[in-house]
């Protein structure tokens, strides 16, 4: 099936969604997605950040679809033409969605563990506006410990339903879901229940914001001061392919490996995530690939040193005195 997104044509198999087709073309046309997760079934459609405009429904039906559609849940039709970043209407609508997602978000990034790898930060930066027009009190909840390793901070939640679907699909015992409705809706466990299974830690990885955080890593370090490396161990429960976040020789955190769309490659078990916190537990495979626009990439100390030396050389050549050497 042929589909054209922002003027770029691609041939995709039947059943592909617009978002998947756009990701096949590449980052320049792929819409952002906060709730869709390709590794989990029936996710998507909730956050509305991936909305696009279909200017031609199919080869048989050349009419446009009047309303913007959620690209993550709309399958392509042969001859479909889609506008994403080329449509001002889509850009405006997305800006509106980002604003809605942020009006009740506490914006406590300076004290949030997710800062630096938060999808909502990226989204706000890339597609939102610099100011808020919301002047009322923001929604507030108490923090909850769901299990001894996971913290739920509902204030930051954007209700993407990823964690609910993950627990539903990865394990056979679902103990959490959404209670209440409208803007009072919240993620919660059944009364006095905790999420307790071998794969529960994955909810931390699928959470796009800082609503579900790793209690063993809480407030230990800003992510951009840690160094990600890919590592492996033989695990009988999961693939054992993980990402270690190092500070010197110390393993501060273990997460799953993320692909370029911020989705995990393999879900990992809790033993790998929470219990193997020594470097000797792991075989290091090499440094992780991190998007060069990410704040985490700023942590290339070797590279930084090179830059410093280069700058000093340039300064010397130009006759500048370094700041710390000045009288």
């Amino acid at each position, binding site marked *: 099936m042929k589909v054209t997104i922002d003027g770029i044509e691609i041939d995709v198999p039947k059943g592909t969604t617009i978002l998947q087709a756009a990701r096949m073309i590449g980052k320049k046309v792929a819409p952002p997605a906060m709730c869709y997760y390709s590794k989990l079934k029936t996710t998507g459609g909730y*956050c509305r950040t991936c909305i696009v405009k279909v200017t031609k429904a199919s080869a048989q039906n050349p009419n446009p679809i009047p309303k913007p559609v959620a690209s993550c849940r709309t399958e392509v039709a042969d001859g479909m033409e889609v506008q994403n970043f080329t449509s001002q209407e889509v850009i405006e609508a997305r800006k509106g*969605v980002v604003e809605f997602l942020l009006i009740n978000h506490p914006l406590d990034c300076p004290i949030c563990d997710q800062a630096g790898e938060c999808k909502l930060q990226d989204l706000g930066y890339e597609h939102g506006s610099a100011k808020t027009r919301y002047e009322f009190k923001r929604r507030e909840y108490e923090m909850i410990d769901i299990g001894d390793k996971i913290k739920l901070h509902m204030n930051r939640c954007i209700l993407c339903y990823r964690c609910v679907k993950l627990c539903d699909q990865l394990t056979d015992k679902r103990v959490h879901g959404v209670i209440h409705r409208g803007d009072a*809706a919240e993620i919660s466990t059944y009364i006095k229940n905790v999420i307790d299974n071998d794969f529960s830690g994955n909810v931390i990885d699928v959470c796009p914001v800082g609503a579900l955080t790793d209690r063993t890593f809480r407030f230990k370090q800003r992510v951009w001061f840690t160094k990600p490396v890919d590592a492996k161990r033989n695990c009988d429960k999961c693939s054992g392919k993980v990402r270690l976040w190092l500070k010197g020789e110390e393993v501060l955190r273990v997460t799953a490996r993320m692909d370029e769309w911020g989705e995990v490659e393999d879900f990992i078990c809790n033993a790998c995530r929470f219990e193997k916190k020594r470097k000797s537990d792991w075989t290091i495979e090499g440094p992780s690939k991190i998007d060069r626009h990410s704040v985490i990439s700023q942590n290339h100390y070797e590279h930084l040193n090179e830059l410093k030396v280069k700058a000093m050389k340039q300064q010397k050549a130009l006759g500048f005195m370094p700041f710390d050497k000045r009288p």
Partner: protein
Amino acid sequence: MGRKLLLAHENVPGIDRLDVYRAHGGYASVEKALKSMKPEDVVEEVKKSGLRGRGGAGFPTGLKWSFLAKPEGVPRYLVCNADESEPGTFKDRYLMEKIPHSLIEGMIVSSYALGSNTSYIYIRGEYFYVSRILEKAIQEAYEAGWLGKNILGTDYSLDLYVQVGAGAYICGEETALIESLEGKRGNPRIKPPFPAVAGLWGCPTVVNNVETIAAVAPIINMGGEEYAKIGIGKSTGTKLISASGHINKPGVYEIELGLPVEEFIYSDQYCGGIRNGKKLKAVVAGGSSVPILPADLILKTAKGEPRLMTYESLFDGGFQSGTMLGSGGFIVMDEDTSIVKNLWNFTRFYHHESCGQCSPCREGTGWMEKILHKFLEGTANLSDIDLLWDIQSKIEGKTICPLGDAAAWPVASAIRHFKQEFEEIAKSKKFKDVSHYERLHKPAMA
């Protein structure tokens, strides 16, 4: 004019009982359909009748039925949507309460047409006592052999169940209704797939409004072509209108589509004019979610033609100068009404009823309510009007289900037609009706 098909016997004592209903020609359509018609013929008659969905969208019922997928070995379901929760609409309650057998009769014929052997009536939680009336009527129908195995000695069997909801407006949206019927949280599903392909328990399902299903019985009795003669153009048949507000005679009226709006408001047969001799200010013609229209635009279109009670005439002028027939919740407001306060009340409702699934509706409805609340407090600025306009435009059309649109349209139309009122409050920093407001509750969720 003035023919009654659904409410013809509304005042007959004991019409809620099967024997009285039968004596007044009840269940004739079941006899006719099951004994002398094939299911396809029934669908064909409904198509010919031009009957349109009475729940609000006005989609042609015959067409909707013909979309129903019919895979081999998979059951099909008919679900009656009795989750009537739109503010201003109470016609289904009246019909079910007064003449419950008319719905059951319609259900049998419609189920036969669609090939459904198990059908459901999903009724809102607040109508608990109505569900008792229906249960009793269904029991009577089972005992008389109108329901159950081999109805009237034919091969056709039907089981009919009443399911009471927990009281959520969103469960009137057909996919949310199906979720709720399955015992889940009433969140609308993402379409496609449409219920006609994968609905209840993943099987092909048709969801129809109470009035639509009840109207099938007279259509079969009189024939589709005869039914199509009532009304004007594509708005055929009769429609129940729930009239409320500042009128002399509020209530449920059955009208022939095509009745002039002016006649409906002022004639003694219907609303009987505005209460206390006041002047008409505005009308919400089809339940709280349709655009509000000022007096001059509801009586006459922008082109100066008299407006009629039809799907087309009310929509004349689009959303710029028109509105919709919707579910027929006709709310009349006199000159003393504050449009701003009324709008706040509507918005408060949508805020409270949003399911919270998709972001624009979850966050936007609450935001709009808070801004409108500022107007009532007299703390709003002129820029808040623009902000409201911007928020509603960013909700409309961006959500999973039409609740987002339903929340956005009243705001858009109130600002479009009554901007002056908003400006007056924003400039004077004073809401006229403060004392009245203080007696009202606080916002739904502060």
